[in-house]
């Protein structure tokens, strides 16, 4: 006969102010099977948990129901508490009387009745719960890091330095991500290449890190501790082993006028020869002079050999015969125990309907058609010493040095109608930096910045942005810009300064738009491959915004950097180390304790052996391929029948088989038919 304890939490006022907890406790006290029923202000606190522990001992409880918040929040807390008193954790269930009751209903009587009923459901379920022991699963002591921007590099190094092997997969031809494209970085103005390239080299040389560049993750199967990753190595058309990075190929390559992704498509007229433009790349190229690995890749869409079957200069001039036009795409399998997603962000574009993403574009700013209206990343390339102009600020239209530059904050961000509702967090800081660097390079230049709220909340951030205003004479105008249009070689910027209550018009030589920081266009596809949640803006959803910011809902998969939401470099690095510490903790254990919520097939003594009659419908439906066939033979070895058997290591615990089984021979531990029917049956009682 079950001896169940019911513990109802007030959660301070959150539940207590709507649900009459004492009366609920009283009502449940008389429910068949319940031997102890009480309520307390904070069940999840130590005194609250001790209340449960003492009750287990005093009343020899065989089951516990805690009516409080969502099980997604504190189920582990209470299950650990009961386990300390020897009661199997799976004999403890939670009734969600907060998120699903007190917080969403106002009528006290209705809420209390509903709470009582929800608790009764769980009591009936607990009566049918069985003791379950955790499953021990071996762990592959390797980690996968997707994306080798600063976040991915940091995570990979931290994990590798803790002694675990890392598979680092980067989509571009070189590691470094967006940070490598930046000039100097706020708030200390140290040059991004100087602080980043050493890490890039370290990650390429580290014995424990297996680096795949120009490669993408095609599939991630399996589960925590036992992921099997399919990496697609795109054809570089250059043999990495032979290539020494000498550069004679890209010096001789004839097709030289291809907009460079590394320069964010920016190009500037060459002062010596206006017909030529700086900032382009060749068909066989390395993204940047500091690329790691410093070995080129052939862009097959622009290479004359691939498009017209002509040329082949690079193969001829290559001293080590490293160029290989026949190189094919390769699929490689890697076994890992944990995954860190560090795929970063993209810069939104004001062009008209660039992708299917909420792009309506900014017609009032010319849809990005005017060469002297550029975005923040392009201005970074102008400022960067490794950029097309070697760090000199030149207008893309005529190469002249702009005397007046206007910066616009919040282009696409904080714009419910045409862009995104969120704030991209870093633009106020990098625009202040842009204005400052512009002033350092063009002494008599005048910078304006149209802003709404100067958001510089980090350490020394506000001081930094004040310096731009106080020492570098950048005029900050509090208001947005309604229109930008060309007039007599200048760009007329029609804005407002709400502090002076006035419309403002400025003739600018160059306009820099701080466009929104958005998720990668293929973030949704990657999320579905990894089976992780993502929000309406296609940033990945962390397990808990405050308490588990670097974990995903899916065990074994962690996030770092801007793929989880807009953030600056310090935060991305901090998150990377955070995610790495989670991975290291996971990989340090020899075995992994897995939730015992797995399927199991009925077994019985002879002559029945099992109610399963071998239709193997479950085998076809199982997404994890966890159903095996077991032959039952008599002592003489004659086959009696073949029945299904569950491989507990592979079973993901979804329960598809249980719902599909016509003989109800297979079921899901923790959510078996008896337990669920008990809950449904309990609905009818008054």
């Amino acid at each position, binding site marked *: 006969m079950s001896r169940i304890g019911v513990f109802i939490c007030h959660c301070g006022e959150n539940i207590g102010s709507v649900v009459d907890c004492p009366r609920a406790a009283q009502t449940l006290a008389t429910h068949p099977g319940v031997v102890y029923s009480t309520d307390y202000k904070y069940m999840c606190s130590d005194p609250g948990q001790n209340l449960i522990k003492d009750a287990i001992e005093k009343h020899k409880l065989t089951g516990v129901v805690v009516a409080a918040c969502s099980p997604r929040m504190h189920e582990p807390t209470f299950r650990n508490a009961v386990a300390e008193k020897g009661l199997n954790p799976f004999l403890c269930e939670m009734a969600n009387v907060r998120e699903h009751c007190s917080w969403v209903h106002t009528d006290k009587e209705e809420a209390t009745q509903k709470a009582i009923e929800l608790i009764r459901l769980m009591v009936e379920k607990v009566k049918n719960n069985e003791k379950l022991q955790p499953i021990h699963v071996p762990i592959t002591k390797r980690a996968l890091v997707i994306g080798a921007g600063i976040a991915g590099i940091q995570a990979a190094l931290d994990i590798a330095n803790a002694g675990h092997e890392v598979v680092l997969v980067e989509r571009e031809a070189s590691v470094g991500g967006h940070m490598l494209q930046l000039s100097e970085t706020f708030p200390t103005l140290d040059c991004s290449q100087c602080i980043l390239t050493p890490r890039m080299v370290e990650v390429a040389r580290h014995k424990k890190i297996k680096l795949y560049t120009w490669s993408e993750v095609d599939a991630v199967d399996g589960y925590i501790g036992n992921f099997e990753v399919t990496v697609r190595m795109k054809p570089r058309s250059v043999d990495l082993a032979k290539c020494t990075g000498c550069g004679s190929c890209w010096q001789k390559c004839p097709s030289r006028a291809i907009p460079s992704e590394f320069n964010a498509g920016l190009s500037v007229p060459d002062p010596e020869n206006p017909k030529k433009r700086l900032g382009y790349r060749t068909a066989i190229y390395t993204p940047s002079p500091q690329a790691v690995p410093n070995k080129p890749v052939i862009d097959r869409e622009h290479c004359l050999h691939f498009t017209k079957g002509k040329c082949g200069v690079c193969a001829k001039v290559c001293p080590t015969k490293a160029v290989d036009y026949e190189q094919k795409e390769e699929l490689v399998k890697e076994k890992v125990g944990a995954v860190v997603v560090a795929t970063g962000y993209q810069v939104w574009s004001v062009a008209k309907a660039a992708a299917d993403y909420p792009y309506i574009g900014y017609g009032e700013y010319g849809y990005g058609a005017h060469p002297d209206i550029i975005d923040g990343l392009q201005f970074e390339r102008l400022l960067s010493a490794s950029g097309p102009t070697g760090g000199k600020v030149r207008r893309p239209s005529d190469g002249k040095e702009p005397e007046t530059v206007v910066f616009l904050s919040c282009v696409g961000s904080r714009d419910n*109608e045409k862009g995104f509702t969120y704030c991209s967090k870093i633009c106020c800081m990098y625009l202040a930096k842009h204005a400052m660097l512009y002033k350092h390079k063009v002494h008599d230049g005048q910078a304006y910045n149209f802003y709404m709220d100067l958001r510089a909340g980090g350490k020394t951030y506000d001081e930094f942005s004040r310096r731009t205003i106080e020492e570098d004479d950048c005029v900050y105008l509090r*208001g947005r810009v*309604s229109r930008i249009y060309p007039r007599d070689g200048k760009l007329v910027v029609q804005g*407002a300064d*709400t502090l002076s*209550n006035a419309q403002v018009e400025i003739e600018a030589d160059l306009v820099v738009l701080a466009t929104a920081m958005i998720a990668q266009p293929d973030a949704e596809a990657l999320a579905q491959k990894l089976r992780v949640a993502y929000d309406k803006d296609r940033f990945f959803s962390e397990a808990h915004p405050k308490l588990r910011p670097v974990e995903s809902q899916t065990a074994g998969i962690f996030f770092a950097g801007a793929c989880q939401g807009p953030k600056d470099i310090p935060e991305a690095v901090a998150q990377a180390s955070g995610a790495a510490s989670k991975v290291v903790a996971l990989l340090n254990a020899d075995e992994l304790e897995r939730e015992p919520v797995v399927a199991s097939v009925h077994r019985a003594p002879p002559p029945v052996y099992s109610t399963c009659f071998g239709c193997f419908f479950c085998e076809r439906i199982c997404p994890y391929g966890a159903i095996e066939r077991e032959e039952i033979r008599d002592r003489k070895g004659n086959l009696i029948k073949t029945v299904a058997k569950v491989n507990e290591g592979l079973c993901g615990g979804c329960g598809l088989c249980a719902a599909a089984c016509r003989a109800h021979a297979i079921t899901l531990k923790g959510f078996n038919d008896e337990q669920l029917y008990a809950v449904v049956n309990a609905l009818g009682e008054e």
Partner: protein
Amino acid sequence: MQLQLSRGQVGSDWKREVERRLGRKVADCYQCGKCTAGCPVAYEMFHPIHAMVRLVQLGRKDEALRSRSQWVCAACEACSTRCPKDVDPARLMTVLREMAQEEGCVNANEADIYDFHMSFLASVRRFGRVYEMGLVAAYKLKSPIRRGPQDLLTFPRMLRRGKPGLLPHKIQNVAAIRRIYERCKLQRPRE
């Protein structure tokens, strides 16, 4: 200037009524100024558009209703088209114009604009369609000294081009138009 803000003012019935007619909350506006930035007649306004929204946010009824801004507004919809929060300031201007008429505090400095609108609507009320000759005459008669000489040179050149027609262009069911006017009259104070 010092504002004595109180619950009564920032939560006034007047503000709720403006929001009811506007069809949205004025609190949605975060004062980004994009409407003022794009307004072609901002140079004429003491309170540019974003400032008018601010007046309503703070419940400053008198300044809002007595302002000139809503009358020099050309209703070109640029502000509402580009507003990132869809606050529809152009519609707010119409609401403030209606309320100014209802409370009898149309800004006297823009009498020309108000009189022209009223003469226009009077002409439509009488004939169902605008009778331009009658409209111009009625408009000028309301303040003959000031408006008499306006366009004196242009008028003969128009006449030579056969414009505006001498006779009104009446519709058949003018009575129906009059009844529409009656049913849609703004509750103006004694005329």
